[in-house]
């Protein structure tokens, strides 16, 4: 199988290039997108740069095993979108991303005709005198042909030619409106798209579908029913340390622990927007870029903007006392798991 070979190479290449610290010999010998247990998923995802907790690993395992879409909800910045990206890296399937927004419709998400080219074709046919001889029926057939079809994300995900099924990321589905959700429901039920002029498009290798929602409104029950559901939480302390170490390799372990501890403390301060993992990583990167090896009051104060994005939240942190927070973070970072 070509597909598996591809994954294998990529996995090995990945390990070499990242000098991945975890022991992964066992994984490298059995790389596959058909895992037999959640633990295997967990290992594979870690290998490709994402550390899932047990719940997420099980949900992803079931997504692959049952071939169902996976709906991820959670606070902004907890790594929902990242799940799709890591699935793509792991399986080797192409990542096809559909960013939803209010008013998104089939022409933007599924397919559209390339009208300008069609018009040009018509004019050309007319100019050469061909149009008169052909008649309307033939002309139409020429125009509504696959070569004038603009395939958008959903269509690409169904009409892929590769061995490996693509990973379809439908991002922030809560921003789209109900009508679009209804359409999506239809498409996700039988992985089939009908274009009136051309007929049905379907696939034997359905894409791996990941939907994310920030929960600005409820996603319709009918859609939820089709999906496996997982609420993504902020990672616990030890996991967050590992994530920082993995994503920002130039940050040394003690600093990573201090950063994770400080972020954990901030989450407890009733912020407008408690920092997510994305912010933790940003912060660690900022500190790394500044050449910091240890947190101190001054550095935290001057880099606060990378973690807390509201003026009020920054004020709250300063009121709480940054010196105290640093001290607390040091103590926490010393605790062994």
């Amino acid at each position, binding site marked *: 199988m070509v597909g598996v070979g591809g994954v294998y190479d990529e996995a090995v290449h990945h390990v070499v290039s990242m000098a991945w610290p975890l022991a992964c010999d066992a994984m490298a010998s059995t790389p596959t997108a058909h895992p037999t*247990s*959640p633990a295997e998923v967990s290992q594979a995802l870690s290998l490709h740069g994402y550390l899932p907790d*047990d*719940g997420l690993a*099980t*949900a992803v*395992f*079931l997504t692959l*095993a*049952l071939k*169902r879409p996976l*709906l991820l*909800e959670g606070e*902004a910045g907890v790594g929902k979108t990242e799940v799709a990206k890591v699935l793509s890296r792991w399986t080797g399937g192409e990542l096809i991303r559909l960013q939803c*927004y*209010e*008013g*998104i*419709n089939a022409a933007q998400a599924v397919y559209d*005709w390339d*009208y*300008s080219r*069609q*018009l040009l074709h*018509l*004019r050309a*046919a*007319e100019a050469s005198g061909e*149009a*008169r001889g052909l008649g*309307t029926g033939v*002309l*139409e057939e020429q*125009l509504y042909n696959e070569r004038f079809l603009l395939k958008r994300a959903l269509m690409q995900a169904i009409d892929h030619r590769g061995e490996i099924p693509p990973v379809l990321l439908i991002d922030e589905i*809560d*921003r789209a*409106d*109900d009508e679009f959700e209804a359409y999506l429901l239809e498409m996700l039920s039988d992985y089939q798209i009908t274009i009136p002029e051309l007929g049905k498009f379907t696939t034997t290798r359905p894409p791996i579908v990941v939907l994310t929602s*920030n*929960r*600005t*409104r*409820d996603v319709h*029950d009918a859609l*939820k*029913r089709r999906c*496996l*559901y*997982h*609420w993504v939480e902020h990672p616990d302390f030890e996991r967050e340390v590992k994530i920082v170490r993995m994503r920002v390799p130039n940050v040394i372990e003690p600093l990573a622990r201090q950063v994770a501890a400080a972020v954990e403390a901030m989450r407890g301060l009733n912020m*407008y927007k408690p920092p997510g993992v994305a912010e933790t990583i940003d912060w660690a990167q900022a500190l790394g870029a500044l050449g910091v090896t240890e947190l101190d009051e001054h550095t935290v104060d001057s880099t606060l903007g990378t973690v807390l994005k509201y003026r*009020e939240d920054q004020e709250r942190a300063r009121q709480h006392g940054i010196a105290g927070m640093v001290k607390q973070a040091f103590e926490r970072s010393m605790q062994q798991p």
Partner: protein
Amino acid sequence: MAVTFARVLRGAGLLVPIGNVLMFVEALGRVGIDERDHVYWAARSTLVHRPEDVTIFDRAFAVFWEHGEVESVAEDPDTVKVTLATDDESDDDTDASGEASDDPTVTLRFSPMEVLRNKDFGAYDETELILAQQLMSRLKFAGPPRRSFRFRPAQSGSRPDLRATLRTAISAGGEPIRRFWQEPGERMRRLVLLLDVSGSMEPYARAMLRFVHAAVAGRQRVEAFSLGTRLTRVTRELNSRDPDLALRQASQRVQDWSGGTRLGECLRAFNDEWGVRGLARGAIVVILSDGWDRGDPAVLGEQMQRLQRVTYDLIWVNPLKVSPGYAPLARGMAAALPYVDHFVEGHSLAAMEELANVIAGVSARRS
């Protein structure tokens, strides 16, 4: 076993469709039933679809799979249907439109209706409440539209509708003689209603809940929450067209009915979990409250400011405003007022009609 567990969950109030039970069975087949964690996560990812349900699920799971202590997991909601006596629908139609009619019966009944319109909600009896509800269900909550990303056909415009143009060009031998245009469509703005259900609001809350129901059932994109000692979302409960059912469901859901008030904290919860995240963005937000707050007024002020920054329009409806010589003495009200775009009365039907007008007319005054 899986089916029985699903029934336990349903009994505890979770929505578990049969398709998901099948999915759960299939999932169990894949992860096995040897390990507790596997079973737990398989069940959770197939049967739970809302973070609020996780606590109930956890409890039910403990009881069912781990034989834990039973602490009132399943309490079937009281399903006794209370039918309220209502007046004949057709009768009211004539009344409400207020059309002059020679029919003596109608004329007779018109006058009480007028009285009712201006009567303080606090002095309503049950029958009047039901009558008022029917009147309120006729209110229109249009609200100003916002520009949509979706285009619609237009007589003339800046953007050519190539699809339609091409369609007609084919039959003209390829010459696009007739040209079609499109323009951006319009969408209704979201309407968010926050109803104070604390003790001090008790005389008004009953009537106002009916107003909220009328709004939720009347059009799309309306969200409703209750404020008291905690924030409760009641949109789903109120979504039923049957007012009796909707009100009963909502009352069951709201646990802090006629309790204390922590307006500031509730608003914070609203902002954190719903509002600022997206629900209130560009929306018209209506707070129905007398502004009595046991909490720190500074918190309320801060949260109001935060809310106002994301909304399109923030309306405060205070049933006490009508009292002669009313001044916003309640500390909470005073703290909130600077951030309110419209401050209106809400003590009677007439006032509620006026509120509906304010909601509808927001754009006119803005632009």
